[in-house]
């Protein structure tokens, strides 16, 4: 169902997306796909040696990828104009990540909406916060 500018109101929630629980295999897949081969994400011995007591941590960009999935499941990719995040917490294997979002502004010129987004785990620990802007079609 196409989302029109007129259907969106400030405060409207983006459909939430639940991902996980995360497996270490997904880190390996993401390392190969993205080119981020930092062993902090794939090698428990390395991660422990640099102070991560539980071993590897998830690529922040994988969690941002989950948010990108959530956004473009709701707003067509071609309408997405800006997307930014601030990483605030570490994600680990076993975590289940929930992505939520909310419309915080809409501008009639350009039919642009601005949304804030959050990714958190099953305990409510926030992994990242951010925002995106999209230009939506108008019923004219």
């Amino acid at each position, binding site marked *: 169902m196409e989302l029109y500018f007129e259907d969106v109101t400030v405060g409207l929630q983006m459909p939430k997306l639940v991902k996980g629980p995360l497996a270490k295999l997904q880190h390996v897949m993401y390392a190969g796909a993205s080119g981020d081969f930092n062993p902090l994400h794939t090698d428990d011995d390395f991660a422990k040696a640099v102070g991560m007591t539980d071993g590897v941590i998830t690529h922040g960009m994988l969690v941002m990828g989950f948010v990108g999935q959530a956004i473009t499941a709701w707003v067509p*990719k071609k309408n997405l104009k800006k997307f930014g995040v601030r*990483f605030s917490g570490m994600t680990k294997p076993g975590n289940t990540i929930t992505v939520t979002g909310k419309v915080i502004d809409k501008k009639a010129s350009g039919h642009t909406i601005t949304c804030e987004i959050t990714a958190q785990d099953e305990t409510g620990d926030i992994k990242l916060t951010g925002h995106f802007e999209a230009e939506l079609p108008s019923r004219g």
Partner: protein
Amino acid sequence: MADKSKAGKVYPPIVWEVERGKIRELVSAIGDPNPIYSDREAALKEGYQDCPAPPTFLTVPAMFAGSMATAVVDLGINFAMVLHGEEEYEYYREIYPGDVITGVPKVMSIEEKTSKSGRTMDMVNVEILYTNQRGEKVAKARTLIVERK
């Protein structure tokens, strides 16, 4: 400690041919089932010219080209103390399989900040502006590298 004299420095361009399989591999790793990224027919039906690159695709050329690693070394940043603070994209045009994109990394600013707990950090902002084979601007990526001290 980041070398503040290097603010404004431009690094050699990243040149990257966008492969269909690499787009599919990235969405598969993310677990994004949206058919526009892997099924050309589905993408055409949704008004794209081919399967578009997903929102975080530009991490791929940046990581494989090693541009962040190059910048970190050149700026004298201690790798062990690096955090990825922020990532932001501005999208101007779709990126499609077969496109050859060129990204020019530039150090926008290097600032020292003190956290509430009194810890000092260097905040290094790097922007990469990407153009395609037709010289059209396709996207801008901004990365905030945080070096804890």
